[in-house]
């Protein structure tokens, strides 16, 4: 059986290449049809905020890559609810299909995967 991987992305899309390079790991694994999930934790949840205008910082649009996840077999983005709430993001106005994970379930969620990569 294929070994599963969880990619935990903890960085905002505005802090250099961290968020993009975390997402690239997920997309590359998805391309090989590997069992893989993405969890946005801490500042990683800023990747979901609506109406981003990355051209203002001469950046490419990371949310376009997030939207491509289903094409790579990653149907939902897992999101730590507390991270969203703490950062004032409105759960109902996010532009992506997400699955919220309660803080008390995060440890169990991580333990469902063979490997974890946190960026």
């Amino acid at each position: 059986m294929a070994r599963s991987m969880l990619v935990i992305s903890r960085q905002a899309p505005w802090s250099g290449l961290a968020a993009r390079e975390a997402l690239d790991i997920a997309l590359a694994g998805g391309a090989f049809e590997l069992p893989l999930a993405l969890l946005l934790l801490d500042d990683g949840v800023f990747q979901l905020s609506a109406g981003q205008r990355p051209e203002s910082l001469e950046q490419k649009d990371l949310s376009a890559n997030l939207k491509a996840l289903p094409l790579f077999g990653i149907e939902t983005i897992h999101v730590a609810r507390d991270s969203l709430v703490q950062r004032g993001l409105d759960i109902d106005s996010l532009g992506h299909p997400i699955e919220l994970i309660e803080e008390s379930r995060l440890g169990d969620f991580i333990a469902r995967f063979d490997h974890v990569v946190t960026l």
Partner: protein
Amino acid sequence: MKFTIAVFGAPHAPGTRRALRFAQAALAGGHEIVRVFLYREAVQTASANLVSPQDETDMGRAWQRFVADNQIDAVVCIAAALRRGVLDTGEAQRYQRPAANLAAGWALSGLGQLHEAAQQCDRLVCFGDQ
């Protein structure tokens, strides 16, 4: 056990040294290293152009020696490397850059190599900057 070691931090970051010591200890403990994979800032560790003062540890060299001495499968993420100016001769020609600087023993390849190694190993251990 079979380990894959992924390194993300810059050559002189403490995490990069720790990754090397961990890799050495894994081999000393009778374990196997399926692959070392350099990603993010760690791709610079595979630059042949790092120059350290004589009284400082040369992390590039230390890794290169470890890879050579133990015949480690040592891969550098090509996309991360191009962005940070670490090129082999093929890439230097392709993008018409003046020089190739990938140190011997390392190979440029895709992120798929990280996943392939993850499929073959029991533990994937990642080391960052700190």
